[in-house]
């Protein structure tokens, strides 16, 4: 088999809704799932203007008591206020010293390739303090990866640019 050259990324563009919405809005866990958590946030540009044409995809390790058919995948198209939302449950810790976390991809008009980030949980204070990825980050940027809130309602804004720019990852 010959080794193909990789296909480059291109922007998702502004007009994707009719193509990608069919798989969006699915909750990863049902209503009464133990540890059910709603994660909600905005995608904001460098002027703090909401980005209404972004797709945020969630990819996470299995949560405890994962429901049948679990894929660990969710997709949310931002609304006019730039908001996305997922309903899920905290994954089990990976067991390699990393704190429990969610992985996000962000696609939008103006992004020629996706942006990747992670959501960590504020109530995992001890695990976060020893997480090998968080420990690599300067203290003032670490907090951009930790969701705020409690009681099953978390908030995680994604700042594409600016003084509060979210830490984005290369993977």
């Amino acid at each position, binding site marked *: 088999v010959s080794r193909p050259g990789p296909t480059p990324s291109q922007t998702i563009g502004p007009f994707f809704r009719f193509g990608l919405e069919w798989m969006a809005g699915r909750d990863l866990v049902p209503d009464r799932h133990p540890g059910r958590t709603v994660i909600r946030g905005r995608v904001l540009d460098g002027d703090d203007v909401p980005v209404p044409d972004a797709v945020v995809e969630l990819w996470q390790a299995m949560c405890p008591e994962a429901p049948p058919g679990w894929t660990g995948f969710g997709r949310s198209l931002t609304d006019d206020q730039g908001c996305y939302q997922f309903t899920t449950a905290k994954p089990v810790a990976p067991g390699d010293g990393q704190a429990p976390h969610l992985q996000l991809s962000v696609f939008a*008009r*103006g992004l020629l390739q996706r942006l990747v980030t992670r959501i960590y949980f504020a109530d995992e204070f001890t695990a976060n303090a020893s997480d090998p990825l968080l420990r690599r980050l300067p203290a003032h940027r670490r907090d951009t990866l930790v969701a705020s809130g409690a009681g099953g309602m978390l908030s995680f804004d994604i700042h594409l640019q600016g003084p509060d720019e979210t830490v984005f990852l290369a993977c």
Partner: protein
Amino acid sequence: VTQVAGNPSLTVDPPYDVPEYGSTAKRAPHQPLVLVPEELMDPLGPLFGESPIRASDADLTRQHPGEPLGERINISGRLLAPDGDPIAGQLIEIWQCNAAGRYAHERDRHPAPLDPNFTGAGRCLTGPDGSYRFVTIRPGAYPWANHPNAWRPAHVHFSVFGRNFSERLITQMYFPFDPLLPYDPIFNSVRDQAARRRLVSSFDWDSTEEGWALGYRFDIAVAGRLATPQQGSP
């Protein structure tokens, strides 16, 4: 901290900040990406084998009572891993404008007609050899507001899932010999010429159907984990 300046794959993917493409100005991050060490990567991605995908979802010309306007084409190819192995059973989604260059999207204000017989969205799962095939119509070119007299070359958007999180890819497929390609800042945001050419499908005589459809071939190879990261300073 090991950081990558701007571009994680360094050779094929476009940078985030491309001045010729105006929408990057307020959306491109300014901080360097932080490299996730390989041992901290989550290994597996989702499999969509149980998704409610029907064979008819891959035929964009059969989603309405009538035939869409335009030139009927087959688009086929294979989804491949970086080592050339086929990626089987994974999801490919496509979307595009109609033959007149108009998207079935409420925010598209291009004064070209909508086609009541064409939505422009399709999806399929790759076969055991990584192969896929769509039937659609050739999309039109359309104007956009990026710069004076700006036109996008005809293209089909592709969203593919590889074997893991690293291999997730969204891209665009172009058509051979399109005279608009040299003028398009999105196509030309891929700085490497050989990589840029891989975004252009090839006319494929073997997938034409006599009396029915022309054929184009577009193989997609996901890049996955970057091979040679640049080491930056903390």
